């Protein structure tokens, strides 16, 4: 890696850093790039913001809906089949 990664490379580094600890050289390269690049700083921040929104979700955030009556009935009858001793 060159001493200054491009934006495309910097997003890859930011993404990798969100999954595991990159090497010292990679971390430095990312830090140098972020220090001068507003877009990639935003990208990096948004990655973490996205994760936070997805993980910190109230259990009753129920806009996703629920089981349809048909699905419920189907599961109910499957359970009945198994439950009979």
């Amino acid at each position, binding site marked *: 890696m060159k001493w200054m990664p491009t934006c495309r490379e910097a997003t890859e580094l930011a993404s990798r850093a969100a999954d595991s600890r990159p090497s010292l050289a990679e971390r430095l390269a990312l830090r140098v790039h972020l220090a001068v690049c*507003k877009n990639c700083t935003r990208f990096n921040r948004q990655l973490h913001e*996205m994760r936070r*929104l997805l993980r910190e979700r109230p259990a009753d955030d129920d*806009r996703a809906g629920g089981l349809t009556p048909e699905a419920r009935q189907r599961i109910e009858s499957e359970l009945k089949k198994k439950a009979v001793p």
Partner: protein
Amino acid sequence: MNPLDAHTWLAEHGDYLFRVARRQLHSDEQAEDAVQETLLAALAARSRYAGDASVRTWLTGILKHKIVDLIRRNVREVGLPLDEDGDEAVDLLFKQDGHWVEPLRPWGNPHTELELSQLRQVLDECADRLKPVMAQVFSLREVAGLETEEICKELGITPTNCWVLLHRARLFMRQCLELNGFSRAGAA
């Protein structure tokens, strides 16, 4: 009401389990399958329920395994998205010299629960638009919080493949969120 009765589980936790599964599987049908398989497995393992966790927590633990099973099946059946089409899509985001084509707009700061809930709705819709396997790998990491090593191992894909899928998914998600008004939500 008997807390170990499967019909009670369905009545009390069915919708919750469905929502958890739907967020990670991105398909109504598969989420229904996951709920069904979870309740059947729970029924079979009923005697092992120790009672020290809530029934919901116990069921959710079983559901997580069922979700991974279903995703593993998808990876086998559908295969991974082809490298080339993903790369072309990434090419659209960056210029030849590696700079962003469009400047990134800042995201707002949602304050109320309603705003947050609307943002999560957009997130769900964007994730549903990713290619199926990519969407599922993304959700295993970002929603379920599995480590990438675990995901690779569970799905039998190489770490490089896994990582490329995740990175592309993130690029597309960010783009989709911006196009769908994420940047205008709340303040600057």
